[in-house]
């Protein structure tokens, strides 16, 4: 299992690598054209972003549980915004805005799609690199600049934006008249997201072109691994979604700095001053934002569909149930994701008839989601599970996706949304279905592909401790948010002065303890990651006895991925539980005759 397949054919001279291996440090590790380095850079950025986002969530949770107490160390870290560590209402909203923006854009989009996709997709296709390596490099560095611009807002006098990750106009559009955090910080937010869009458009084009053009011999569409299918579909979703968000952000910037009125109507009196705008529509921003925003949910989660569907057959040692149905469902989800954005706007004042029209496709999109979930369950059924840490995170992914998906049934109905909209029920729902599920996909992918990426194995004992504590912590943190929502507890409040919300404080404290516990569990992951990177056992080529092409080359792969040869593919990625010379599986490059021999 550790040997590189002998069936790889010799490289044709004409197909030589289209850029040579770099020799200088800068070109090798910083401005690299190598998709593997760029993938690692994206994963590194995702790790930096998730640590930042998680630290911000601790600050929020601590303040919600003990609103009058100083947050430990915060007075030293951010004396300008939280003198003595006590958080002001506006700083709470700024922290919340940055938490949401960082997590959605720079973690959930960056890591599972751009990170793993960059490293793994070309190898799974049998290619030497992405179709446009320079665009690829540009994509990462543009994204990095976007992150730097966003975080720079912490270092300006007014601090970051406070209008939430959705940046609803006109709060986000009228400038600093609407309060602290709506000055330069909000402009930086819009500039950052516009830059981010450019990075993702470059990346998406690259993924699509690479998938269409650089598949190796024999790699038909139906032989592509599910993870590659998922990244390909995600790229299509992202290409359309970010194409809309980019001009929306430019319009927002123009409203703020150039006096235009795309999102600002006439007659607004902000801070006792009549605003010099007319003719704009706040609902236009909501439509443009959510036309991006709902597909963004699938940009975050579909890669994890692919990761889980790729890992499950490997750890179950049986073929994935209904591979064509699985791919069809992912495509259906991608298509339907553009017909449901209005369910975020049931109460926005748009036509009430539209609410019904948006509700139906929102419920219909649960059909492919339910089918995919059942296919995963059917794959686990009657299998021979190898309970690696990656396997455990895949199984837990199914659990949290079910939990988060089912709470979506409530919010997809306008009449129920009349009560639950704007409450913690929504927070619990999207953290399960989008945040935690995608994170579990990222964790599964990390434990699964770490040996391939770094050439060393991760520590499985630490991994299982990390998994167990994370799984419990996740449910303890996010399930109670549904109960808070049912009581009418409103989200985005820095404290709860309302009489009827006083009773929610004990539950908020429980959630805070759980969140801190959950955060502490991630330290195990960090230790494991760093220790394994330098001290982990050397990884063989195919430690999991998997079938796809990335396991048919060394760990880590050479610069051109397959050492100067082109793999030829004879099988799909799903051939497990079959008798073969390798044992119970067939690699994609195994010649038909060899695979048939028992």
């Amino acid at each position: 299992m550790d040997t590189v397949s002998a069936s790889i054919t010799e490289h044709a001279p004409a197909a030589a690598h289209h850029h040579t291996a770099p020799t200088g440090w800068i070109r090798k590790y910083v401005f690299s054209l190598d998709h593997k380095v760029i993938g690692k850079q994206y994963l590194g950025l995702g790790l930096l972003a998730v640590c930042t986002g998680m630290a911000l969530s601790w600050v929020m949770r601590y303040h919600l549980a003990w609103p009058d107490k100083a947050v430990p160390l915060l007075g030293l870290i951010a004396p300008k915004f939280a003198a003595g560590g006590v958080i002001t209402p506006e700083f709470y909203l700024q922290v919340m805005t940055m938490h949401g923006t960082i997590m959605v854009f720079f973690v959930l989009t960056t890591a599972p799609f751009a990170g793993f996709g960059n490293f793994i997709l070309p190898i799974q296709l049998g290619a030497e690199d992405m179709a446009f390596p320079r665009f690829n490099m540009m994509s990462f560095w543009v994204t990095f600049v976007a992150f730097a611009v966003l975080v720079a807002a912490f270092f300006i006098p007014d601090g970051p934006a406070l209008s939430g990750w959705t940046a609803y106009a006109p709060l986000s559009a009228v400038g600093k008249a609407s309060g602290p955090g709506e000055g330069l910080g909000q402009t930086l937010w819009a500039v950052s997201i516009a830059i981010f869009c450019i990075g993702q458009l470059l990346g998406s084009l690259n993924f699509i072109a690479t998938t269409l053009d650089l598949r190796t011999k024999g790699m038909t569409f139906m032989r592509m691994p599910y993870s590659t299918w998922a990244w390909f579909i995600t790229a299509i979703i992202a290409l359309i979604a970010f194409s809309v968000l980019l001009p929306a952000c430019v319009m927002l910037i123009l409203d703020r700095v150039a006096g235009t009125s795309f999102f600002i109507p006439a007659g607004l009196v902000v801070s006792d001053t009549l605003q010099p705008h007319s003719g704009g529509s706040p609902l236009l921003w909501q439509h443009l934002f959510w036309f991006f925003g709902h597909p963004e949910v699938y940009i975050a989660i579909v890669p994890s569909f692919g990761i889980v569907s790729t890992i499950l057959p490997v750890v179950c040692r049986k073929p994935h149930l209904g591979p064509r149905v699985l791919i069809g469902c992912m495509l259906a989800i991608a298509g339907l994701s553009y017909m449901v954005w209005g369910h975020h706007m049931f109460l926005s004042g748009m036509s009430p008839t539209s609410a019904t029209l948006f509700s139906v496709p929102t419920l219909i999109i649960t059909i492919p989601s339910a089918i995919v979930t059942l296919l995963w369950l059917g794959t686990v059924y009657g299998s021979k599970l190898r309970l690696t840490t990656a396997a455990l995170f895949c199984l837990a992914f199914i659990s949290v996706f079910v939990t988060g998906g089912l709470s979506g049934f409530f919010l997809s109905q306008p009449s129920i949304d009349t009560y639950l909209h704007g409450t913690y029920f929504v927070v619990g729902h999207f953290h399960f279905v989008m945040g935690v599920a995608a994170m579990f996909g990222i964790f599964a992918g990390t434990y699964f592909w770490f040996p391939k990426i770094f050439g060393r194995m991760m520590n499985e004992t630490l991994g299982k401790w990390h998994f167990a504590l994370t799984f419990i912590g996740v449910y303890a943190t996010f399930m109670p948010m549904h109960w808070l929502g049912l009581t009418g507890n409103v989200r985005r409040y820095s404290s709860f002065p309302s009489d009827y919300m006083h009773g929610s404080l004990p539950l908020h404290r429980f959630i805070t303890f759980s969140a801190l516990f959950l955060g502490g569990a991630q330290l195990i992951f960090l230790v494991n990651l760093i220790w394994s990177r330098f001290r982990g056992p050397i990884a063989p080529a195919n430690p999991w006895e998997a079938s796809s092409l990335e396991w048919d080359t060394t760990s880590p792969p050479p610069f051109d991925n397959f050492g100067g040869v082109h793999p030829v593919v004879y099988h799909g990625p799903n051939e497990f539980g079959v008798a073969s010379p390798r044992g119970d599986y067939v690699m994609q490059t195994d010649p038909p005759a060899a695979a048939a021999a028992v």
Partner: protein
Amino acid sequence: MGKLFAVAVTVITLISAALFVTHTWWLPPDISVLGRGIDGQITETMVFTGALFVAAQLALALFVWQSSDGVATRVIRSFPGGATFMVVFACAIVSIELVSLVFVGTKVWSSIYLDAAPANALHIDVQAGQFAFYFRYAGPDGKFGVPHPELIDEGNSNFFGLDPKNDTAARDDIISASLVVPVNQPVLLTMHSKDVGHSLFIPELRLQQDFVPGLVIPVHFTATGITKTEVVCTQLCGLGHYNMRAYVEVLSRDDFAKWLVDQAGQ
């Protein structure tokens, strides 16, 4: 580890389900005509999704328990019916849900937003601004004065930008910081914002609606119980968002008439 996982999933599922079923944390009592339909819809959805939640989680736990025994010789089994069964099952379940929830839910939604307010509805004009609600009653003449944004002056309590010097209808308009309504009488709110987006949420009335600058949004309700409760803002509107609230008082018709007279005399 597989059996441990199965036990953890089962325990989490049963505890979560029990806390939903026992209504440990639940909606506040409903005091509105429309609330009955919404509560019924929530309960129906809770039963439906709750059954699916428990079934799916326990199936996952069972399959993991069975598949993780580590017996190397165990024969791999395919799921009975295969992918076809899964597709038919998912389509059937969601179709049932579509029929039972969407059509019933549409009726509830229509009664809130598509049916016009009854002709005898009390009309109250509501303005939201950072970080307060103001409620305007037409006064004895039954007419509202025309608001002028350029005349808004909170320092002089002209929250709506009225022009009583030139607009006779504006002279008797009653402005209140609380929403006061009579019990069992339909109420029509016309909602508008003077600055940024806000939202009006009264949990006991099962009523929530955004204010969108530039739009006047009508919404109607009928309160069925005498009470004093709160309206809060649920649309992020700036630093004071958490504290943007007002009281809602549902009075008997006599008490409401008296309150209106008292306010008109001030």
